[in-house]
């Protein structure tokens, strides 16, 4: 048996689950050891490939603080065979990790400008590291706005953290849900309806959008309506991925490989494709 081939980007590093926390009914946050190294530094918006023994491997965004690369935090919605197996792993369970992969949010380039983050559903998870990054360097940014839409009050991710963020005076947080019972005192409607309510300077704003594709299309329309330059809008795309290194071909979105050119892509780069069906 030969020792590991460190140059093989398809080889996962074995690691283990540190903690597991239920966020909402079908969504769990797993904290992993970095695997084979003391730290696995990542940029906000990047993802890891997580392997469950014998079941398979899927891309999962890093949802933790990039300032803590010794903890790999992933928020997983249990919807498929691998994500269900992953979400079921308890502390100390073995898991394989490859990564981090991909291009993240342009948090450095956004310094000096207002930043609007628009999240739909689980899309809040890949945006959270960007918010951590910005809040830890708060003085370098203008106004910062988080607009978040969930399906129902019971589906709101990171609820306690959102409450904490809401209390900050240097961060505008607005939450809406698609549908709710009479005990919900907040807004009902889609996340993009929040854009006209938020206060930011459209002429000097960078927008980060992550959610279902249809939601992102509407978010882009709302941002443009508000006067945000399309060159300042970034989206995180989702496609099938098997390798994360641009070799398997599955994640192609026109000429872009979502795994290595994205997942965060500027709207300018994909605008001709986003409006087409089945690209």
């Amino acid at each position, binding site marked *: 048996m030969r020792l590991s081939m460190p140059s093989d980007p*398809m080889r996962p590093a074995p690691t283990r689950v540190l903690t597991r926390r239920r966020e909402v009914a079908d969504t769990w946050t797993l904290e992993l050891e970095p695997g084979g190294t003391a730290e696995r530094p990542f940029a906000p918006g990047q993802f890891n490939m997580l392997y469950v023994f014998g079941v398979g491997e899927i891309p999962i965004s890093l949802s933790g603080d990039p300032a803590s690369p010794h903890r790999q935090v992933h928020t997983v919605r249990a919807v498929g065979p691998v994500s269900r197996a992953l979400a079921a792993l308890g502390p100390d369970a*073995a898991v394989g990790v490859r990564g981090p992969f991909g291009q993240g949010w342009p948090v450095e380039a956004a310094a000096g400008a207002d930043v609007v983050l628009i999240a739909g559903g689980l899309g809040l998870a890949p945006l959270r590291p960007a918010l951590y990054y910005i809040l830890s360097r708060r003085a370098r940014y203008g106004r910062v706005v988080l607009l978040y839409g969930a399906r129902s009050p019971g589906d709101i991710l990171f609820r306690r953290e959102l409450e904490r963020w809401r209390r900050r005076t240097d961060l505008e947080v607005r939450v809406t849900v698609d549908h709710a019972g009479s005990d919900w005192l907040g807004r009902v409607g889609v996340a993009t309806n929040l854009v006209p309510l938020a206060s930011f300077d459209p002429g000097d704003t960078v927008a980060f959008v992550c959610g279902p594709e249809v939601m992102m299309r509407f978010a882009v329309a709302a941002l443009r309506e508000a006067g945000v330059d399309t060159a300042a809008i970034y989206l995180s795309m989702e496609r099938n991925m098997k390798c994360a290194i641009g*070799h398997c071909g599955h994640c192609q979105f026109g000429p872009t490989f979502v795994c290595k050119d994205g997942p965060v892509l500027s709207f300018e780069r994909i605008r001709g494709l986003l409006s087409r069906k089945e690209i």
Partner: protein
Amino acid sequence: MGKTSDAALITRVGVQRLIEVLTARGYQVIGPTVRNGAIGYDAIAGIGDFPVGWTDEQDGGHYRLRRRDDAAFFGYAVGPHSWKRYLHPPRLRLWRAQRSGDEMRIIDEDDEPPRYAFIGVRACELNAIAIQDKVFLGGPYVDPHYRSRREAIFTVAVNCAVAGGTCFCASMGTGPKVEAGFDLALTEIVHDGEHRFLVEPGTDFGAQVLAELPYRPAPPADIDTARAIVERTAQSMGREMPATDVPALLRRNLEHSRWDDVAERCLTCGNCTMVCPTCFCTSVEDETDLSGTMATRTRRWDSCFTMDFSYIHGGSVRSSTRARYRQWMTHKLSTWVEQFGTSGCVGCGRCISWCPVGIDITEEVRVLHEDECDGDDS
């Protein structure tokens, strides 16, 4: 291309000797041979394994072997196989994982990568290998499995003496004359005297191997004959890619009604992707043994024509036949250029011959092109 003065002449005995020399140097010699009614690539022990006296008749959805009236070794175009099945195997075990309790260990594959000598590599195929080099070696990540196989190959190229009915390398600028990327290049001269082969070394190593063969300097007349053979092949291509900016043409026509027309014919079988020498897409399979302690990860060729290929939670991104054919063709001819700086098509014609309904990539481009030209006229 080897210098003309280096050109040598060998006979059939010299080709036999070439196989023996390469075998003695530790290569697994792979070459053309008749298998299941087609000329495929497989292990070769001697010249008797070549498709001696066979040629192939090809057209849209059509491939038949036919007898030639001579004993040519390389008197055919290309078959369903390409060299990617050796450099980028159809199935490859990547690693295994062993679990005991909460511990997991990754077990790497320790097999020595095979050392292949390829005999009979055509110009289109050399270009296909160069294209896969860009995919697997040219980006930020390198595929170590491809690299170890690729770096070890010895390549004996062959200039095409016949063009197949679906060949269009001349219009893609990828043949039929081999230009680069070989150790030795052969041109088979089967008429006008003795059955012989002009040999041109492309590397110093190729020249060393040539020196071990019974050869004589090539007479100028044979060099001229060899050149004429390739020129004649270039003039007899069965197909032609329209001479226009194809990448831009496809970008302009993503919603053309022709895609619906193709969808009426396409069976989404994926044959075109399997026979294509540049199609590189793969999927992975994970399985465990019966004890549940050993898991295996296998990489296998995949096709953008399957529904699974683009599946994400909620459904397949490309569920219609129209979208899947469009993805394959626009990737091959258009977005590939943006990704890798080259077209993904080398004009070998395999996708035309092996399409069960004879969909012709050159014809689909021609329809889009002529439709635009008509639009300009009106």
